[in-house]
């Protein structure tokens, strides 16, 4: 029910035009996972206007400027303040209109035109113009920025007339639509940006449901209702206060005491307690998948049989059940299960000790070896998971030597390839598989994410799929890549990891999407 209420807002006058749009359709082939699951009571009754929502989060934000944004909390906050040309649908499976009402691409894929929604205003009442859109997106596609890679073939963004912007590309670029739904493609006011100069990051002005009232770094971010918001009747809340509560236990206690209405990053082992007290929990799968990344420069990891043996010996179902208390799902592909073109039916690697043993027997280390595994300290889930894995690996003679290192130290070791195996996770910024595959399965620009995986056939398919505008053919290419992947396995996929939120029973309509957009315009407080 939350879902139906949710989609109403985005239905709008929609004309899904041309090839790009069909991106969405192909996803029929996708599995049913990836949509948020929730234990919330359905949003019964009529939404009530007013009230302040206190949202306790585990970390502070750093900026409101999408160009300089690096962390999730800043991203999720920007999603509330700015709109984008398009948005991810509530079920996470397609792209729907936001500030653009329709779009079309040239048959050769080198240009794409987006038609702007008329009558949209910024939260200060000034109208949104085509030059704001061109200005924001020209910054977004700048290859000097850390998010420019999401738009790499886009050469420029131009205004065709007062209500149409055109993207001009060097090659056909199928992931464009998904990339435009990310925070990095947020639209903001050009005049406001120029007024604040280098301080723009502290003075956002967007067309989103909420506007910034105040930000005390380290303490709280207060947003107020944008009274000029283009979706009629929304948002319902007068105010949203994001507070910074880094301690996991403290957040749960704040929810229980009524200090906070919603909390993020709920520890999986606390979900049962939260539910028992009558609070709601929201588990959003779809954008993150656990990986054990392997460095192929370290023998015997250069042999596919060894990598596969390690992967087949991983008991994903037990990990999902015991480490994540059933909130995670065994992974069936290297991409998160909410990614477009995710295909679980590509002969995925599942727990099979006989197969692991047989594969190892075909390698140069048939009786096993010692594998050094690096974990970020304090990451208990990874540690527990590794213990389960180690017990099974011991049965085929593989010994795990686990090292815990502080997060940034571990990251540095990984980035400089001073690691053998690293327990980590991949998180999508865009729902398009090209983001992960473009860096993870091709050798350049980052040595296939420091695995040194180098398979010309897969790399060629990734490039081909990026330029394939026909969604049916694109789906076939990604199925082929995922099938080939399961015979190579540079990253051992473990489980699909959820984002976990908990909320008070008085909170209605809270349904964050797999990209992390809280969609607070649909949230109301009552009863």
């Amino acid at each position, binding site marked *: 029910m939350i879902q139906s209420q949710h989609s109403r807002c985005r239905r709008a006058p929609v004309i899904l035009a041309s090839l790009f749009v069909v991106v969405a359709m192909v996803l029929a082939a996708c599995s049913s996972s990836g949509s948020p699951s929730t234990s919330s009571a359905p949003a019964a009754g009529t939404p009530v206007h007013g009230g302040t929502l206190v949202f*306790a989060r585990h*970390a*502070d934000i*750093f*900026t409101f400027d999408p160009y*300089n944004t*690096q962390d999730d909390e800043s991203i999720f906050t920007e999603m509330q303040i700015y709109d984008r040309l398009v948005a991810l649908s509530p079920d996470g499976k397609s792209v729907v209109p936001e500030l653009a009402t329709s779009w079309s691409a040239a048959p050769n894929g080198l240009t794409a035109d987006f038609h702007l929604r008329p009558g949209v205003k910024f939260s200060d009442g000034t109208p949104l113009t085509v030059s704001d859109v061109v200005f924001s997106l020209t910054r977004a596609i700048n290859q*000097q920025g*850390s998010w420019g*890679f999401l738009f790499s073939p886009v050469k420029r963004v131009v205004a065709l007339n007062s209500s149409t912007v055109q993207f001009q590309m060097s090659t056909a670029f199928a992931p464009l639509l998904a990339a435009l739904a990310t925070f990095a493609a947020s639209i903001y006011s050009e005049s406001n940006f120029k007024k604040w100069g*280098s301080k723009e*990051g*502290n003075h956002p002005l967007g067309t989103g449901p909420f506007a910034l009232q105040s930000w*005390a*770094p*380290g*303490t709280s971010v207060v947003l107020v209702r944008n009274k000029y918001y283009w979706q009629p009747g929304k948002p319902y809340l007068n105010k949203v206060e994001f*507070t*910074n*509560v*880094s*301690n996991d*236990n*403290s957040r749960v*206690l*704040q929810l*229980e*005491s009524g*200090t906070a209405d919603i909390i993020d990053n709920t520890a999986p082992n606390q979900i049962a307690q939260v539910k028992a007290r009558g609070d709601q929990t929201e588990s959003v799968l779809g954008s993150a998948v656990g990986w054990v990344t392997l460095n192929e420069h370290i023998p015997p990891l250069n042999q596919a049989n060894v990598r596969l043996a390690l992967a087949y010996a991983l008991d994903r179902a037990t990990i999902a059940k015991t480490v994540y208390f059933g909130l995670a799902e065994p992974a069936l592909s290297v991409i998160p299960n909410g990614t477009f073109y995710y295909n679980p039916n590509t002969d995925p690697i599942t727990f099979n000790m006989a197969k692991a043993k047989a594969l190892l027997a075909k390698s140069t280390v048939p009786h096993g070896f010692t594998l050094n595994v690096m974990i970020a300290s304090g990451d208990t889930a990874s540690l527990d998971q590794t213990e389960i894995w180690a017990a099974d690996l011991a049965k085929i003679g593989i010994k795990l030597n686990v090292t815990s290192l*502080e*997060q*940034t*130290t*571990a*990251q*540095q*070791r*990984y*980035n400089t390839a001073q690691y053998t195996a690293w327990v*980590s996770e991949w998180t999508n910024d865009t729902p398009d598989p090209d983001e992960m595959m473009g860096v993870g399965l091709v050798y350049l*620009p*980052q040595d296939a*994410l420091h695995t040194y995986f180098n398979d010309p056939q897969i790399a060629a398919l990734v490039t081909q799929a990026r330029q394939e505008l026909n969604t049916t053919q694109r789906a076939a290419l990604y199925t082929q890549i995922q099938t080939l992947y399961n015979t190579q396995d540079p990253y051992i996929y473990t489980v699909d990891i959820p984002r976990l939120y908990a909320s008070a029973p008085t909170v209605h309509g809270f349904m964050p999407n797999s990209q992390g957009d809280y969609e607070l315009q649909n949230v109301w407080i009552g009863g």
Partner: protein
Amino acid sequence: MARYIGRRLIQLIPILFGVSLITFLLVRLIPGDPAISMLGSRATPDLVARIHRQFGLNLPIWEQYLHYMNGVFHANFGISIFYEQAVWPLVVSRVPLTLELLAYSAVMALAIAIPLASLAAVRRGGVVDHGIRLSATTALGIPSFWLGILLILLLGVRVRIFPVAGEGSGVIGRIYYLTLPALTAGLAIAPILLRTLRSSLIEVLRAEYVSTARAVGLPRRTVFRSYILRNSIMPCLTVLNVNIGWLIGTVIVVEDIFALPGLGSLLVSSISTRDYSIIQLATLLFALLVIATNLGTDILYGVIDPRISLARRPA
């Protein structure tokens, strides 16, 4: 007195200089730098190099230090790499809350330690004494991060007497909001004070002037307050002073549990992000705080015990 304080203040300079140098080198010795922390797996050599250039991290370390010191002499403590703001207002705005929490914790610790120690000393060897000493030893073993959560659970969630988070406004509001955090930190240090105070009380109780005072027929209460407690409190203050660093450590943990935006929580989050400028300034301020507390205690000695003359003491 003024000369003494002046001399102590001059001594501050080399200490702060040393602290700044050590902190500067230490943060750069930890593997992983701000660019890595910021970009994570997206840290391509190009992007890392750009961030290094932007914040001068590509320069030789001695040159970076010169730039830093040059800034410090111009009251410019640098830019936060993550917030992209000057660190001075960012860090200094956090100081009052931490100072208030520290002071309140110290008061709380003394408020717990003094009556209990007095009781234990007077009833030395009895059940009460053993009970108090056993509780103190137990309390010493309770980690603050656990005690804080427990106090929130009991007094903030089950029985809603105290707020579970926030800093409150106004004097009364601030005291009310900081009570649980201060109690948590105070309980961490109270057992140490209690033990010191108890043993010095016992020692003073045996002193001849106490016997004399009693023999003269002064009321018991007067004897205890003016003769015994006043003479015993000195070692207690010394112990509090020595343990100020530990109290600061506890307060950092407490700030995290109670979601208090103080200097400690900022330092912790900045260390994990490797926000060098913030770490440097916050550490410097903490060092300054410890030194100031030491100086303050020395001055207080003179007030409590007139026999101690600061000016004549070899510094």
